[in-house]
């Protein structure tokens, strides 16, 4: 076994540290060492996006990064998404109000990806949303309501009323 390495990073505003084998994937460090199990492991092959976290302003598939690579990084996971007073953030509210989830397995990854998308583009078109979440798979919803959930959140963040496009 290779020598363990000491890692420190900031996760959801908290400084965390651990001793890991270099081969430990970031998602395993988050789920097993930090016990933050909201970040899911889906395909393990960089396809499904269920393990997406926000890392230094990027959406990253945490199954395709070693924990040692995240040394010094600032990470946000689904556990850090609620408002400071514990109420749901605009995106979380959007997924709830628009029925943006069924089984919920893809939801943490979807929300983390949508979070970065809306940080980069406050008012995305439907096409930009669909392209923006193209690295996240959902096998339940058919994506319609996920797109609506993100549109709902964008409207709320921009302080305008959300109007569903006519079907």
């Amino acid at each position: 076994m290779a020598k363990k390495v000491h890692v420190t990073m900031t996760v959801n505003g908290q400084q965390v540290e651990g001793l890991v084998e270099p081969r430990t994937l970031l998602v395993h460090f988050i789920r097993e060492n930090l016990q933050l199990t909201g970040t899911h492991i889906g395909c393990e092959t960089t396809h499904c996006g269920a393990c997406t976290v926000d890392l230094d302003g990027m959406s990253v598939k945490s199954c395709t990064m070693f924990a040692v690579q995240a040394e010094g990084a600032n990470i946000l996971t689904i556990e850090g998404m609620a408002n400071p007073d514990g109420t749901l953030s605009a995106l979380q509210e959007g997924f709830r109000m628009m029925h943006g989830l069924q089984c919920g397995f893809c939801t943490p990854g979807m929300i983390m990806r949508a979070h970065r998308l809306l940080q980069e583009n406050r008012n995305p078109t439907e096409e930009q949303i669909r392209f923006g979440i193209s690295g996240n798979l959902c096998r339940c919803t058919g994506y319609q309501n996920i797109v609506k959930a993100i549109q709902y959140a964008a409207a709320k963040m921009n302080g305008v009323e959300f109007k569903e496009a006519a079907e």
Partner: protein
Amino acid sequence: MIPGPFEYHRPTTVADAVKLLSTYGDDARALAGGQSLIPMMKLRLATPEHLVDLRDVKELKGVSQEGDHIVIGPMTTQHELLMSDLIAKSLPILQETALTVSDPQVRYCGTIGGNVANGDPGNDMPALMMTLGAIYRLEGMEEGREVPAREFYQGAYFTALEPGEMLTGIAIPIPPAGHGYAYEKLKRKIGDYATAAAAVVLTMSGGKVASCSIGLTNLSETPLLAEAAAQLVVGTTLDDETLKRAAAAAEAIMSPAADGRGPVEYRKHAGGVMVARALKRAASRAG
């Protein structure tokens, strides 16, 4: 899926990285964005004992203009290429191609250096680099050398890189103002490698093609330069008959594998279609 054990190194200079890579030779791999290497390690198709992470080597990042070339640091991510005004202005085909590479998350991490140096025939950037006449700067323990992209690819995952060497720069001649370009990629879904893809850069003069180069992705063990097809369209107006002949000339050098993307005949046919489409779209953009 857990990768095999390895020792992790994080050098901060090219000199230190090269030293590590030469010390450990075949037992070491350079880690760029990791979006190809880590999945390979999880499948144990790659089992390096030493991983040399290049993320702290600052001199390997960034896009700049040096004379009539754009020089790209290999650790520049696909996302950074998409955000670069200099690339948008000088090499728009690089952005069109980057947008077809995998998905947003992979583009935040995946680097152009990893994409071109890995030697994966499925990667999109190698054929584009051949089309553009890019030059790769390689550094090792001995004096550095420059290798044209057109001479770099030797087989699937085999390149001109020697053990202990690494890619430290990509220099791309800036195509003339008014050039036309297109990257046409057929894929089954977002994130997939190309069933067939073609890159075209051309110039037009008086309604006729003045110069042209064509690259092909995932249609052989290496990326291909379709020289005969490119030669054939020069001096023409890209009429339907010429497009057909160019597609056929390109198909003649393709030798794709039969896989989940389709049988050999289908992939060659699709390759020809991509060539014709890319030629047409490139011409429509030339001015």
